[in-house]
């Protein structure tokens, strides 16, 4: 599937006509929101903890160059090889190089948005390697040949029956039917239970872990103080990816650094609660360098790839830099009425929903992302939800300003503003409209607003009436004539 946010408007208009997708999204986003709500309700001193997490993220951003240098030193001292990647192409090159150096044939991956961002899988596959996503959701979208549609729930758009059908088709092709103690693939019905499906996937993935030469993961937090990489997850597959294969590559976008372990703890207190409504995720791995001589497990060789890919430019933008605070909990996606309606794929990029529209606009070519900041009603549900206090609507407006500066507002917008600036013309224009078209029947045919026809189709438009100011004046005169006493003395 080619993904490009250029078609965002078209794709989102199409997505909301897909009744099945809407039903699945509605169910899933409500489920996430309910779980999260319940977790936050019992989270004592919630606001304090949110503020501490925000402070930790702010501290990281304000001292970024210094902390990244420190991270390089501490990670190197722990035995990790650190690589700097200016952009996606360079990151792909570095990781493919590492894979080739260790003669990798099979690569297992833990769920990570950043490796999606740099389109790593196709690069490794082009270099002749077999690449396996090991997160259940990622595994499912990989089998389907689709990009993830949610930051923390990549296959949120798929129903249980979709998954069963996919497994029937794809795992059958892979010759993995007839698993011990499980029904064979021909018996896998659409009503297969989630544990049943999970077991099937687990069985398939086990073999890949054991065969893997290289494990690639993202990074939730990199600790400058210790050179550690922290990864949170619920399935255990990330831990397997970092410990089974002899070589581990962790890929981080440069803003993921935290100054100290204490800052990392402040972040960890909030991240799982906001993401999945858990006090803590089932697995938290803190990895500091490769396996030491007396240790039983862990990769023998560890790499850390630090990716910029446009972020240092964003950091210099006074309002927009706030988007880099995000730690990808995904809560704003679930709260967004637009995301709830169109899902993640319509955004045409790795990152979707409110934060996705912001990040894609900041990281991808401007000509491809012009529509993203406009696909938002500015309702602020995201801002109210974000534990880090990111003001998404304000950032959307700033992005709109950038689009407007590069291409100007539409004709109709310009005309409206001209008239509004010149009160006399404004009144004349409204007056003229009133005479010609009091019921606003002509409205849909005005040039510049193709959406008007639909708007008027689905909603009875208001009529133009005798203006408020004229009516008030008339009533005031009547009031003065009848001298009807009022509780107040004054009058305009």
């Amino acid at each position, binding site marked *: 599937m080619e993904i490009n946010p250029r078609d965002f408007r078209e794709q989102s208009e199409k997505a909301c006509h897909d009744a099945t997708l809407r039903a699945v999204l509605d169910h899933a986003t409500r489920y996430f929101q309910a779980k999260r709500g319940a977790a936050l309700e019992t989270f004592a001193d919630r606001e304090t903890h949110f503020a501490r997490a925000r402070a930790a993220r702010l501290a990281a951003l304000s001292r970024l160059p210094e902390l990244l240098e420190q991270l390089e030193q501490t990670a190197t001292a722990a035995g990790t090889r650190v690589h700097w990647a200016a952009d996606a192409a360079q990151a792909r090159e570095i990781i493919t190089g590492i894979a080739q150096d260790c003669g990798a044939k099979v690569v297992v991956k833990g769920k990570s948005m950043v490796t999606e961002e740099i389109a790593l899988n196709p690069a490794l596959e082009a270099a002749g390697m077999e690449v396996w996503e090991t997160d259940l959701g990622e595994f499912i979208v990989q089998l389907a040949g689709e990009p993830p549609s949610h930051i923390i729930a990549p296959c949120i758009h798929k129903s249980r029956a979709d998954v069963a059908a996919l497994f029937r088709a794809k795992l059958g092709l892979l010759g993995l039917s007839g698993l011990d103690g499980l029904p064979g693939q021909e018996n896998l019905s659409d009503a297969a239970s989630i544990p049943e499906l999970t077991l099937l996937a687990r069985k398939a993935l086990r073999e890949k872990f054991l065969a893997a030469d290289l494990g690639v993961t993202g990074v939730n937090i990199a600790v400058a103080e210790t050179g550690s990489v922290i990864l949170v997850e619920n399935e255990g597959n990330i831990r397997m990816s970092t410990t089974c294969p002899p070589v581990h590559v962790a890929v981080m976008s440069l803003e993921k650094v935290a100054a100290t372990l204490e800052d990392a703890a402040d972040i960890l207190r909030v991240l799982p609660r906001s993401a999945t409504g858990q006090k803590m995720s089932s697995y938290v791995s803190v990895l500091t360098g490769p396996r030491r001589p007396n240790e039983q497990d862990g990769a023998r060789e560890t790499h850390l790839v630090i990716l910029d890919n446009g972020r240092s430019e964003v950091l210099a933008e006074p309002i927009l830099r706030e988007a880099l605070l995000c730690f990808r909990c995904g809560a704003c996606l679930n709260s967004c009425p*637009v995301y709830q309606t169109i899902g993640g794929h319509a955004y045409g990029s790795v990152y979707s929903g409110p934060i996705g529209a912001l990040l894609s606009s900041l990281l991808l070519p401007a000509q491809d992302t012009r529509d993203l900041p406009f696909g938002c*009603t500015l309702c602020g549900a995201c801002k109210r939800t974000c534990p880090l206090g990111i003001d998404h609507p304000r950032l959307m407006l700033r992005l709109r300003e950038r689009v407007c500066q590069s291409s100007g*507002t539409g004709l109709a917008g310009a005309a409206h503003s001209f008239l*509004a600036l010149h*009160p006399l013309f404004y009144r004349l224009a409204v007056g003229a409209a009133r005479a010609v078209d009091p019921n606003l029947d002509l409205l849909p045919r005005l040039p510049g607003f193709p959406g008007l026809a639909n708007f008027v189709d689905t909603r009875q438009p*208001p009529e133009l009436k005798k203006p408020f100011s004229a009516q008030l004046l008339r*009533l005031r005169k009547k009031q003065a004539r009848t001298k009807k006493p*009022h509780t107040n003395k004054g009058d305009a």
Partner: protein
Amino acid sequence: MRITLMIPCLVEDCLPEIGLAVVSVLERLGVGVDHPRVQTCCGQMAWKTGDVARARALALRSLELFAGPAPVVCPSGSCAKMLRTYPELFAPGTPDHARALDLAGRVFEFCEFVLSLPGAPDIGAEWNVRAALHRSCQMDGSDAPQRLLSAVRGLTLLEPERPERCCGFGGLFSLQFPAVSESLLEDKAHELLALDPEILVSAEPSCLMNISGYLARLGRPVRPLHAAQALDHGLDLGLQGALTGALTGGPTWR
């Protein structure tokens, strides 16, 4: 006390009855109302399309219109919010920035203002009616409409399943993403209809227009009223109405 009334362009030309209800309520509560003419647009549309230069020009017009120490009251959460945004349009330290800050500190959304008056939230209104409230995301989480309406004697305040969810209007959004906008509106309309209300109340005229327009097309019209209209009618029916009489002498929507 006197206030300056800021009338949104939608109210001026399409929903004037809302403006009249605002004047009627305020005057009956002992507040004098000045309405400077000629108001056009607060610049919200330009601001939300990213046209900051035009928004700034329109803001300068508003700074002239609403100069002076009187509180500025506006029957729209989104326009009130726009007026509060003006300081962002001017460089800190400039005289215009100072004027914008001064104005931002004096702006009240209608319900917020009424709530600040002595005696509120019970202003003596009474109405036996089932009212569905659309909070409007443009109110920035203010609960002023809920508090005022809950204090109307006899009024049953009903809120939809997801009271804070957007109705899908979003100004330009409804024109650029018509199908998405309609989907959100559909969700909102059904949650509201499930309440079986007699009237639909909101403090945001644009949401009110959006939702009621859809309900009319659905063939399930529910009388849409701005909070000011609901309070005005409640005052007519209550004790206060009998004592003082309204500006308009009857419900403004008739």
